């Protein structure tokens, strides 16, 4: 069985992605992609791996993700929708409420798919 941390991380300018066992994804920097296909494929791979490995939860830490464009927000929406559709695990999102995009976007995500994600605010 392939590990969650074995998923290949795409090279995205301005973005640092760290995968740590057993189920954590940390994203730092910025996402200003016009073409989100590489990150979308990455999120899809993580989703598949979490489901196949029967992880009860994936932790997504975006506290250090300072700026994202609308295309990037769509990627998080997609991931939440996949999780909602499969029902295989929960996506626990760690946010910094001082980052307005995180507070607004993840609040909206809860309204969309509240059974799929949990949002916790970093202290």
């Amino acid at each position, binding site marked *: 069985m392939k590990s969650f941390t074995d998923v290949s991380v795409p090279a995205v300018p301005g973005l640092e992605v760290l995968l740590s066992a057993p189920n954590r994804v940390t994203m730092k920097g910025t996402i200003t992609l016009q073409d989100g296909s590489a990150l979308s494929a990455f999120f899809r791979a993580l989703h598949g791996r979490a489901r196949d490995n029967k992880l009860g939860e994936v932790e997504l830490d975006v506290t250090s993700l300072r*700026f994202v464009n*609308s295309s990037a927000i769509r990627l998080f929406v997609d991931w939440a929708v996949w999780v909602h559709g499969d029902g295989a695990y929960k996506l626990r999102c760690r946010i910094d409420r001082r980052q307005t*995009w995180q507070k607004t*976007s993840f609040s909206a995500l809860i309204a*969309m798919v509240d059974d799929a994600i949990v949002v916790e605010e970093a202290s």
Partner: protein
Amino acid sequence: MDRERKPDPPSSSKTAWSSHSSGSFKSPSHESQPASATRVAAPLPAPGTTVVQILCSSGSSLLEPTHAYLTAYCKARFGARASDKLSVAIYELLANAIAYGSLGDVVVEILEGTVTPGVRVANNTTMARIGMLNGHVSKLRADPGKTLLDEMKRSSSGTVRPMLGLVRVVHEVGCQLDVSVTGQRVVVTAFSRG
């Protein structure tokens, strides 16, 4: 790219498409200077004065470097708090103009307002897109939170909607948004609310 400019006079040639404002955008006016025997510093720019203007074209690849430059400029001039909000507005308005503008210059300006700074982006576009824009701005004015939710749901269907950007400008960073149309020229202005 920085240049001193006199404030623009109020527009007098608007078409039947009225300005959809979530607040008023006052045209810059000339403040009278108090009488004083000496002046030791240059007077502040008049309200709504353009302090930076950049021209590019629709479809250009200048979005990222322009955004990076303007964000850094705003941070230096207006402080981190204001620039963080403006940064979202700069990116989303300019991204829309470059992606959906038609032939002609895209003009992005940083404005020094009476209280807070702002950004103004102007571009030509098609009448069909102007119609879409007006419809969207109406929904945004009525209920920004619901519009954000609606646009996020639509974005998951596989099509990146340009309107998610405008919603972010209003709902996420709380900017005051004004849209003005003259013929096929659209001018979108966002002022930080402080």
